């Protein structure tokens, strides 16, 4: 049994979140296998983002438990969870708008250095991180914009920047909330390729509405509707499930 547990990076049991009595996520059990790409799909308002907020501890669950690498993190605070190696991106891009593109990425790179409380040092001491910053920016195609103010970037570039910042922490588990929404086709392909390339030695859970991306990238798919798990399996299993089809059509009426 311990063997199976070790293969799952995340184990969620009976997870429930109620807002003013309304259950946005209700009684969800989910296992995510290590080094897999696990997609979470479902109609609008299904509770996907809330699920992310719960396992990253932005919200405290009303009920249920969360394990990460075998440790119970149900009552941990979100920063601590992030330091364990579970890092997320946000559905609405989360950047530091009045800092430069390079500074955005550097904020993430700075943490493992252990100098973040050093208020007496000059920030030029952070220049040792510049090479890594440039590498990350090149990976998402932002190397030309390094010294631009992040808030002034077009939307697709902001998402790319957020992705680079998230990657900078080299997380063991990467949570992506709709990484391709609002992007042009070219950017979508770039991000998809990037997700594939970084999935080699880590686990990814992603919420995604673009089903062709899901089909190409995901090893396993969980379908959520009205806070409950509706189906789980591979793409072909899930896409032929009549309940899933009904939920999608019913959800969009």
């Amino acid at each position, binding site marked *: 049994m311990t063997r199976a547990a070790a293969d799952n990076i995340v184990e969620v049991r009976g997870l429930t979140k109620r807002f003013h009595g309304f259950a946005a996520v209700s009684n969800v059990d989910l296992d995510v296998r290590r080094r897999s790409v696990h997609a979470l799909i479902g109609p609008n308002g299904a509770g996907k983002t809330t699920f992310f907020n719960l396992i990253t501890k932005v919200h405290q669950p009303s009920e249920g438990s969360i394990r990460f690498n075998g440790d119970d993190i149900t009552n941990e605070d979100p920063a601590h969870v992030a330091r364990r190696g579970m890092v997320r991106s946000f559905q609405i891009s989360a950047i530091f708008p009045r800092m430069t593109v390079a500074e955005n990425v550097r904020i993430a790179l700075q943490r493992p250095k252990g100098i973040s409380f050093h208020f*007496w040092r000059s920030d030029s001491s952070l220049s040792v991180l510049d090479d890594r910053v440039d590498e990350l920016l090149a990976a998402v195609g932002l190397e030309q914009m390094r010294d631009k103010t992040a808030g002034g970037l077009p939307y697709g570039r902001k998402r790319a920047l957020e992705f680079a910042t998230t990657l900078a922490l080299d997380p063991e588990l990467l949570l992506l909330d709709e990484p391709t929404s609002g992007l042009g086709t070219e950017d979508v392909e770039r991000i998809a390729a990037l997700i594939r390339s970084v999935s080699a030695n880590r686990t990814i859970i992603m919420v995604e509405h673009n089903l062709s991306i899901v089909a190409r990238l995901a090893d396993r798919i969980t379908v959520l509707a009205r806070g409950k798990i509706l189906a789980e399996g591979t793409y072909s299993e899930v896409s032929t499930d009549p309940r899933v089809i009904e939920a999608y059509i019913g959800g969009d009426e």
Partner: protein
Amino acid sequence: MMAFLGISPQLLFGQLLIGLINGVFYAMMSLGVAIIFGMLRIGNFVHGAQYMLGAFGAWYLLHLPDLFPGLGLPSLGYWWALALVPVAVGLIGAFMERVFIRRVYELEHAYGLLLTVGLTMVIEGLFNVGYGAAGQRYDIPATLKGGVNLGFMFLPYYRLWVIAAGLFVCALTWYIVERTKLGAYLRAATENPNLVRAFGINVPRMLMLTYAFGVGLAGLAGVMAAPIYQVSPQMGQSIIITIFAVVVIGGMGSISGAIFTGLMLGMIEGLTKVFWPQASTTVIFVIMVLVLILRPAGLFGKETASVHAANISMARPNSFLENGRLWLPILSGVGVVLPFLVYPVFGMKIMCFALFACAYNLIFGYVGLLAFGHAAFFGSSAYIAAFTAASWGFPPEFAVLSGMTVATVMGAVFGWLAIRRQGLYFAMITLALAQLVYFYALQAPWTHGEDGIQSVPRGYLFGFIDLEDTMNMYYFVLAVFLIGFAAIYRIGRSPFGQILKSIRENELRAISLGYSTDRFKLLAFTLSAMFAGLAGATKAIVFQIASLADLYFTTSADALLMTLIGGVGTLLGPIVGAIVVVAMQKEFATLGAWVVVVQGAAFVLCVLFLRKGVVGTFEDWLATRSESKRNAAGYTADLAAKGAE
């Protein structure tokens, strides 16, 4: 009857009665503050002044014939006042909402607090000009004179009436908000204004009426209070800080909770007066501290997990105005020649307050936390420096260091407490904690109460530089200022400063990257307190006095005002703001009580028209100018290219 613990029942029940009456006022007032806060997201600091308006309203009605002789107006008594004044005060409230408060709904809530602080200063200042500190008598209405002897105590009818009427008003308000359709709309409007708007309800009018209602409650409390307390311009000033503490203790969430908390705290205060009179002024603040430690969301609070610091920095990152390496030498140069241009004492005052404002800017501008109790650090440090220099014979450098140390420790403790709550609560908590320190200093023997610690010796710096010499003193202050300025600049541009910036920009994201942002805020708050302490201690040595004014909330407001006038979050803003405010205080010093009015008006005008401050506005102007220059250059380049074709 038997005496209990050597305390006569008359005293016990008498104090309990007074406590209950205070409790009724706390309940009525905190109800209004809680409703306004809940529905409008405004920390209505001016509530105390509105309560005072109620009391003066009653007094005016009584004195109509004297105020307008020749018009043949009748003198209207208590019952008329009870009916008319709350409506009149409510109307004044509606007017204030319409003209001022409405303009800041969409802004960071810091501005709502600043605006109401400014309005408070204007209103209270004006009444102070008119009536001075002395209170006016207002007699108990004839119908309620006398009382009944209960055997163990004498119960005046008027007090009985206040308790009954106050409780009735509280219950009625509870009923309206929690049980009627109107209340349901109000509550819905706070959760989702767009939805309510979709129902065809005029939300702006509803907000105005809500504000007017809350303010009317304060006016009613004022009328009821007039015969008990003296009618004076200051009557609202300390009660509002207590009310904020009551709101923090109760927590947002329920109307009945606010009422219950108010009553309970009044009673506890009354009991404390019996058993430990010295502690009675501070007991509510101490309870607030305990509640924050044990139940951070408040007794009845349901904490909403909204994490976000206010981003109101006006600085443009790469502007030359933000370049400390450029400005440190310039400031040094100006500082060296300044005493030959203006009175050195004036220069020293500016530098002390500029350092204070820079320290405040570290937490308000760089981190976005609306601290409103920096007087505690400035003043405590001033007292410690004054005391160690005067009583223990410390040389000035050690006196200053002692003051700073105390301010730093205090900053760590206060920060640790206040960071448990977000946004406006943070402001209220820091304000209440500072008031706790103020009351302590008012009573402790070593601070000499109203007199303060006077004739502090300036002493010999390092044992041989005589600071009684004005020039020596001046250059010492200049050195302190420059060191403080450089240190704060460094903090802002350190690895730590980068994280502070990220917290201000997007706290949720900083957390999701693994930063425990509360710890960063705490360190920043502590550092800010330390430099505020440096400023306060230096001020005490320069002016050879530490006084209650250094600890009073107006000193916290000064720090805010200077930062705001200069430009929040900018490098030079606090200095510019300090120059403006100190010069203003000097100019208007001859006007006496008007200074407060002028300062209050400056607050209001700044919030409404100069939110970017002097430096922020200038930076904006520079930015637009360089923008249009670039465009023009681009245009000429285009022409040149065309010409070459």
